[in-house]
């Protein structure tokens, strides 16, 4: 057990030695992998942040129902009953027009302007908390409520959030396609690096085969090299994304101060960072494995 471990450690040491023997070439490879991975990782991060924004603003969906301006108390009572009995509605809140005006005065600081109005421009309103939360059902419910008599307008408050959600879905697909393509590129880069290594170590491989090396023994340093290169590429991608984020956040800070709001981009979470590294290790290993499987069998001693 310890012998095997020491053997693997020895291989790892040799691989690192080889990797740092060709500093520039090794670094360029890692940089290419890092950039290739940082693009989808960065886009993913932006999407993640946008998603957080949507969740923050949309919350649970509600439908606002504004009554006609000349609605009477009987109409309000009738509608309240109708809404309370509706199977798709969980809860109903009534906002009287006077109450709404008070709220408007307090929340916007427009008290002077509103105080100058001759009459209250706001209608009575219901805020409905619906049971379903898929867009289709909510839209159906909104249309149904809009047709009730005495209702002027029914509005799905989180409508924009759903639109954004759909946009995000589109973005996620784009990221997925980009990530797949760049993953292939990463595999290709590793494949080629390993192919060159196998060519330059042709003699060593041949001799090793002649004196009793198993395929596993011969394969091991190449697989380790691929995985290690993937890992360093992943670290590079992480650094690129995190540094870019810091730079963006600085600008964003200045921007959000102008809008008197607080908004910063969140960095890659621990789990996401780990996934990024593991994924890049896996891709590097896979590229090396494919290359080794393709090229090692072509070296047969004579």
């Amino acid at each position: 057990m310890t012998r095997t471990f020491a053997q693997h450690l020895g291989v790892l040491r040799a691989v690192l030695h080889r990797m740092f023997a060709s500093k520039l070439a090794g670094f360029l490879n890692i940089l290419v992998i890092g950039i290739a991975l940082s693009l989808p990782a960065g886009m993913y991060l932006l999407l993640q942040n946008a998603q957080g924004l949507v969740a923050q603003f949309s919350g649970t969906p509600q439908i606002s129902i504004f009554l006609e301006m000349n609605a009477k108390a009987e109409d309000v009572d009738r509608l309240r009953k109708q809404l309370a009995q509706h199977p798709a509605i969980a809860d109903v809140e009534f906002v009287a027009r006077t109450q709404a005006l008070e709220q408007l005065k307090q929340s916007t600081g427009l008290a002077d302007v509103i105080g100058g109005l001759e009459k209250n421009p706001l209608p009575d309103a219901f805020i409905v908390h619906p049971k379903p939360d898929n867009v289709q059902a909510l839209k159906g419910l909104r249309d149904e409520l809009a047709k009730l008599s005495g209702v002027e307008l029914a509005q799905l408050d989180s409508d924009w959030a759903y639109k954004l959600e759909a946009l995000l879905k589109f973005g996620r697909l784009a990221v997925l396609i980009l990530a797949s393509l760049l993953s292939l590129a990463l595999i290709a880069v590793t494949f080629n690096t390993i192919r060159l290594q196998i060519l330059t170590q042709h003699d060593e491989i041949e001799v090793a085969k002649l004196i009793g090396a198993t395929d596993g023994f011969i394969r091991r340093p190449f697989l380790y090299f691929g995985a290690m290169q993937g890992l360093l590429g992943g670290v590079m991608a992480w650094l690129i994304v995190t540094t870019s984020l810091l730079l963006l956040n600085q600008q964003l800070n200045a921007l959000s101060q102008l809008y008197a709001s607080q908004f910063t981009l969140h960095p890659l979470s621990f789990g996401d960072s780990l996934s990024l590294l593991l994924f890049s290790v896996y891709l590097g290993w896979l590229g090396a494995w494919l290359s080794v499987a393709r090229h090692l069998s072509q070296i047969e001693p004579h």
Partner: protein
Amino acid sequence: MISFNHVYKRYPGGYEALKNVSFDIAEGEMVFLTGHSGAGKSTLLKLIAAIERPNSGSVLVNNQNVGVLKGGALPYLRRNLGIIFQDHKLLFDRSVFDNVLLPLQICGFDHRESGKRVRAALDKVGLLKREKANPIALSGGEQQRLCIARAIVNRPSILLADEPTGNLDAAYAQEIMAIFKSFHQVGVTLLISTHDASVLQDTDVRVLALKHGELQ
């Protein structure tokens, strides 16, 4: 230990390297394989290490038919053989010490034990003082001895040598032969190919003579 039964080896293109070759080598025997160049000496040695496979007949090593051995079993056959190649097959990207270390790395020996073994093997062939040198800096005779050190470091029970004295002058050749004899004395089975009749003069060992792929 090694047994050939009606072995034929034909290379692609129709060249018949070995024709109906049969012989037995007992454990601990030292046997010379002679013949003009192209007589099939190298092919015969390659069949034992399963570098080539026979077209018909069987090649037994330790009662194992190596001609039909699966690829995955080959490494374990070869670990039991020490092979000295005609073209040396030394690695010039590493020191003398690391060249001899390679077979032990392959078998997974631990660091300290393998260091001792490498030095013992180098000592046996008189190269202990050159352990840090690059093989390219060694003379032809020294390279040959390095090749021997690599072949024996794993303490194989069978040693195969393909023209070990091929390009060496008489004094070097005598030296190499003396080394082989010392292995013979400790019970290693040796099969040594040579086209150089002079090395056979003062020995009374068994000789297998090949001529155009046939045993005489």
